[in-house]
């Protein structure tokens, strides 16, 4: 039954821009402060106060627009979206309506079947956030609503996609990609739970082959990727069931309940506001010069997609390794810095994806705070490459480096871990092991060649791991077979 219907999804993402001050006043945007401590006449909407646009917020909007292939409008205007709510102090939200700052962009997403798909970005516009309502938590205050306006007037960029996605997976893929980009750009901290990256989803279904879009529902309150996927899947099922049972989808706003995994109606079309959008006469049109755009463009970092292909094409990584390393900007920078020092991209990738990531996870540390810097890591790799230590010893050295931040050389010296490559010294150990295990020697000579591992282990053990394993192997074979 599901196979007869095509899902159509469009997404609206609100990304909170990482400015230090609010979009229309000088108040701090810091999260989690005492309620209403970060307010002024402007964001409290006192009589007579006027907004002044934060130029840094504009710069971050341009940055995002460029990274999502949008056209940056040379002239855009701010409009008032009028509605009453206690968390909206002015009785209107300053947003952009007719002329947004960014338009006509796109992002490519990778589908499961390995193909790429282009998702259109209709527009991205700047606006201010509302405050927060806090409900009393004691019996006396439970019927009260308190208003905290610390968040009011913080800058948001609303990024609106075309209805180009055809499944929850595509939607998640687009969202993750967009999320990665805004975090990479440093324009948004990307925190879904704190609400710095919020998503609303417009969902509709239609029989395959039908061109006209079905009636859509708008889903709200989606604060994790998992919930978004769950909510979309539930909603698609709900709409199909409804149509199949002879019902009709109505245009409405629906709230996702993460406890039940279901969506429920919040308000219908008939309750929809007439926002009476009107250009805000308190703000002059936002004029963005080509020079400004180019200035911002020059500061754009290499984006994940470009990084991935460089890692594959220039450094010879596998697609999977490139994906993992490019996913996080700081991890990618760490990798790039390591490759620049060590030249051997593959061993850098192996170590970073293996031991470094493991230690980060174990110690709950971010890559930026890792005690083993790219310099230290590549110092270790150099000692493996020149046979000073074996790979196995290197793991131990790495652990020590992580603990005390010393160089590999310092640890190798101090702990006497230098690999034994002196043929005479190894030879005598080999002789001792052969002499001590006549039974195994006989078995080996009888054809049980696998026992070579046993002998290598014994020799390595006797050398406290410092003997060069290749040499041990070679000498053992020589001695055992007598040639």
């Amino acid at each position, binding site marked *: 039954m599901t196979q007869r219907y095509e899902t159509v999804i469009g997404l609206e993402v609100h990304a909170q821009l990482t400015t230090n001050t609010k979009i229309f006043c000088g108040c701090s945007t810091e999260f989690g402060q005492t309620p209403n401590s970060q307010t002024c*006449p402007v964001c*409290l*909407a*006192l*009589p*007579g*106060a*006027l*907004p*002044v*646009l934060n130029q840094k917020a504009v710069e971050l909007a341009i940055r995002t627009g460029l990274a999502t292939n949008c056209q940056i409008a040379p002239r855009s205007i701010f409009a*008032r979206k*009028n509605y*009453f709510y*206690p968390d909206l*102090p*002015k*009785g*209107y939200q300053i947003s952009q309506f007719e002329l947004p700052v960014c338009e006509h962009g796109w992002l490519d997403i990778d589908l499961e079947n390995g193909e790429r798909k282009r998702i259109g970005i209709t527009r991205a516009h700047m606006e201010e956030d509302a405050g927060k309502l806090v409900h009393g938590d004691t019996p006396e205050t439970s019927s009260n609503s308190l*208003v905290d306006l610390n968040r009011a007037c913080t800058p948001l960029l609303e990024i609106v996609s075309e209805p180009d996605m055809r499944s929850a997976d595509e939607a998640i893929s687009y969202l993750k990609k967009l999320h990665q980009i805004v975090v990479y750009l440093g324009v948004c901290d990307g925190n879904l739970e704190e609400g710095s990256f919020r998503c609303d989803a417009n969902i509709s279904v239609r029989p395959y082959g039908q061109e006209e879009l079905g009636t859509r529902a708008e889903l709200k309150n989606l604060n994790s990727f998992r919930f978004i996927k769950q909510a979309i899947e539930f909603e698609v099922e709900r709409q199909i069931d409804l149509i199949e049972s002879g019902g009709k989808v109505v245009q409405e706003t629906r709230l996702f309940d993460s406890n039940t995994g279901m969506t429920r109606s919040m308000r219908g079309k008939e309750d929809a506001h*007439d926002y*009476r*959008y*009107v250009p805000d*006469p*308190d*703000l*002059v049109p936002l004029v963005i010069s080509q020079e400004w755009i180019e200035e911002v463009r020059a500061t754009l970092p290499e984006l994940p997609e470009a990084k991935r292909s460089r890692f594959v094409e220039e450094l010879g990584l596998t697609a999977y390794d490139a994906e993992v390393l490019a996913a996080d900007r700081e991890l990618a920078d760490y990798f790039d810095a390591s490759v620049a020092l060590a030249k051997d991209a593959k061993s850098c990738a192996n170590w970073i994806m293996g031991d470094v990531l493991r230690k980060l996870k174990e110690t709950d540390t971010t890559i930026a705070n890792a005690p083993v810097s790219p310099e230290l890591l590549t110092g270790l790799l150099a000692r493996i490459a020149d046979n000073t230590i074996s790979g196995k010893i290197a793991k131990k050295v790495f652990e020590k480096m992580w603990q005390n931040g010393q160089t590999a050389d310092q640890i190798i010296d101090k702990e006497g871990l230098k690999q034994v490559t002196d043929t005479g010294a190894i030879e005598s150990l080999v002789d001792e092991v052969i002499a001590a295990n006549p039974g195994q020697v006989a078995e080996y000579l009888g054809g049980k060649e696998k026992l070579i591992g046993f002998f290598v282990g014994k020799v390595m053990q006797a050398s406290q791991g410092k003997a060069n394993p290749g040499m041990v192997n070679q000498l053992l074979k020589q001695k055992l077979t007598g040639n």
Partner: protein
Amino acid sequence: MTIHDLTLAELRARLDNRELSAVEVTNAYLERIAATNPDLNSFITVCNETAIVEAQAADQALAAGEVAPLTGLPIAVKDIFNTAGLRTTCASRILENYVSPYDATAIARIKAQKAVIVGKLNMDEFAMGSSNENSAFGAVRNPWNLEHVPGGSSGGSAASIAAHQAAAALGTDTGGSVRQPAAHCSVVGLKPTYGRVSRYGVVAYASSLDQVGPVTRDVRDSALLLQAIAGYDSADSTSVDTPVPDYQANLTGDLRGMKIGLPKEYFIEGLDDDVRKAITDAAATYKALGAEIIEVSLPHTAYAVACYYLIATAEASSNLARYDGVRYGLRDENAEKLIDMYMQSRAAGFGTEVKRRIMLGTYALSSGYYDAYYIKAQKVRTLIRQDFLDVFEKVDTLLTPVAPTPAFALGEKTDDPLQMYLSDIYTIPVNLAGTCAMSLPCGFSAKGLPIGLQLIGKPFDEATMLRTAHAFEQATEWHKRTPKF
């Protein structure tokens, strides 16, 4: 010499030579206000205590030789300006007990010069009105005839200056609110070019039209007060960063080569004969002073009032949404639900005219009507602005009436809002065009009510307009008449 009969410039000289102290001057005005305000009702708040403190500070500054042009001068301000620590009511019940925590930029600028704020002036509620009858604190009366209105919305500003309750006042002008009451009270009222004076801290009525302006007894004082408040302010995005010339230095009396235009659309049916004659006489005076008088045309004038009542009300409907009873101002504590709190607080807090304009504006912005009303009005506004830019290619200044009639009687037009709206027919186009204009005394009607003339200047050329006004004032005696009050 009576202290309260002195102009700003005259007081300045006497403060500077220590003939008078700021405290003496302030006391004289506070006494004058106490004696006259019961009849005029021009003040909502009188600053009996803070004014003396400010005057003492001004005297200290004078003694220390730290003298700015306004130091120690008694100024009253329309109750639309936010004044830290003082009530700022906008003549509305909804802000009846609202004490502002901050100063408007214009206030901060005159305070920085240690001017003395003697009180907050009555006005039409939220500056919506042409008669000052729309005040929650009662109507203001015209000092020339107590049965007549002083004009509005800065009625308190004009009446207080005419009655010498303050040496100068600040008003605001959205569609004529400084010029029309100035004309009705025979004082000088100036509306600067939009963007010349910061709107920060001025309670908004119609943001794209509102502008702060001085109300004074003569043109020199107007220049003096404008000088103090004019100039770019980073807190107002619509203020314009362009140099402010020395306005007083421009008052040369020299009108040679000046071209003054008489727009023919302003001399039409409905224009009172006394007013027509006074303006014609003024044109003759200008001709005698050496100016060239040229008839010009502003073809879209007839659409200005309709255009204004769409744009101004649309903006007002949004600007006044913040008075919701949530954070400050009147709140109906008996409301059961949120929606009731909104509706009951606003129903109780706003007066009839304010409600009418909020409804008009809400309608004009509603889905389905927006294009037909708001967008159309914006297009008309562009044409009106272009009219002015075109005539300013030919002339330096325009000379027109300020209002079609002298001040009407109290209650005469309160039942007929449309008639009331038409009393701003000559002032509204200037706000739509965004340019500067001023009103100055030019005669009296047969009934003894004042008549004002309007000079309209090029954008940001207040200096030439003031020079033109000053020359007329020098050649006439109208500004010297005072009401027998």
